């Protein structure tokens, strides 16, 4: 499935909820299927900066595609990372770097994109793109 298709799928999923509670419960649910980072990778150098909660991200190349694993100590954050990973993981560095990630806005999570120190979603996406770029040389 392409990045755009996954985004579309997520937007459709979220359109089923007409209140914030359903939406957040769905986010929390997403966290449960997050591909978890191996314990040995849960090191400070893999922490995403700028999140109020801790988010560890590990990126690696498999057959020319970037595979992400992550974890967080906050469960809403965990759900948000899971959503972003669901969209980006398994794609080529170029696809990842060029992904527009419009779904975040479209599912009404705009507040998680504001550049306050509390919300790390922007930094999360940025780090994933940076990792993809760094791993690009290894993926060819």
């Amino acid at each position: 499935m392409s990045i755009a298709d996954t985004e579309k799928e997520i937007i459709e999923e979220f359109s089923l909820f007409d209140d914030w509670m359903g939406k957040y419960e769905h986010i929390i649910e997403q966290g449960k299927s997050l591909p978890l980072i191996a314990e040995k990778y849960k090191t400070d150098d893999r922490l995403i900066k700028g999140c109020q909660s801790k988010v560890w991200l590990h990126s690696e190349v498999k057959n020319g595609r970037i595979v992400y694993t992550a974890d967080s100590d906050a469960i809403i954050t965990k759900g948000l990372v899971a959503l972003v990973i669901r969209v980006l993981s398994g794609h080529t560095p170029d696809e990842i770097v060029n992904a527009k990630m419009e779904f975040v806005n479209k599912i009404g999570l705009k507040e998680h994109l504001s550049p306050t120190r509390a919300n790390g979603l922007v930094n999360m996406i940025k780090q994933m793109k940076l990792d993809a770029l760094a791993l690009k040389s290894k993926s060819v």
Partner: protein
Amino acid sequence: MASVKTIARQKIDVIAIRKDFPILSRTVHGKPLIYFDNGATTQKPLQVIDCIVKYYSEQNANIHRGVHTLSQEATVLYENARATVQGHIHAADASEIIFTRGTTESINMVAAAFRDTLREGDEIIVSEMEHHSNILPWQALCEERKAVLKVVSVSDAGELMMEEYKKLLSPKTRLVAVTHVSNTMGTINPVKEIIALAHGNKVPVLVDGAQAIPHMNVNVQDLDADFYCFSGHKVYAPTGIGVLYGKQKWLREMPNYQVGGGTIKTVTFAKTEYAESPLRFEAGTPHIEGALGLAAALEYINAIGLENIAAYEQELLAYAEKKLSAIAGLRFIGTAREKASVLSFVIEGIHPYDIGVILDQLGIAVRTGHHCTQPLMERFNCVGTVRASFAFYNTKEEIDELCKGIERAVKMLKG
């Protein structure tokens, strides 16, 4: 607008007071705003907003310079604002009131002033509950001058270990920098005693009053504080304005911080003669409307009466403590005997951030995280807390909503 009269120990008319704060009638995510982040910044009453609008509509001019009427009027307003601050904190003289950008700048100014006199092995004492703003300037200074930063520990209840403090005071101590009220826990520190002990060792004391000013009467002469710092925005005034109070004898000795327009008597390329305090410390065109707004805010709370405000806020605090303690797994961080209306807590197994996000969806603004007191978080072995800080425009009904909100969040997050 509510009419606020000074009658000692009068019960606060919160319905009337709320009408003075336009922002309190807005909604967040479709729900009425419940603003419990007063420790971060307070909302502004119309009296302050109107004062700023009036300044720019009718009074704007640069101060201390012009001979024209507007400039003279603006200068009088600005200096009157200084006198209002002086009166409010009971300083001996208006020249002891320096307008700054806020508490952080005030502390940095004092740290810069001590730079040249600090020698290798000298000591500065701070406490474990300080805001980063009252740690970093001293830490940086100590690193630069090879001095030593000594830290007074905090008890399990969130109180300063006074016996330890007494032991830390030594002939090597050059300064004590301590907060009046903890921003994270609300603990009211015995600053008068802290200062007396320091003075017994001929050590000056800087008090970070950012969290005290909105909640209590402060008398810098009675405290005998050498320096007292606070921010306007935490006391219903605009952002970008703050105060450094310094005893005259210190201000006379203090080197210039920044120099430029407004700080001088005469300038030639050979030599510049500087003005006296406070102008010597207020380089450039100051935050004039900020100073006016600060004076308006102080007049506003004085009209209500700080005793009345404190009594009502204590009532809110006691009510919230009682209500929240019924929530399973909730632990308060900071249970000092003397507290301002700040309530920090953690809930077992739930990250404060998650609670903050859910509460926000319910229109409730609380603070989550480390509150710029990471050493204190380490002391209590938590990643952060949820902090509800109450102002006199808050109500018990809002606290009920907070409790319901927390219970809802717990249900969703543990579900």
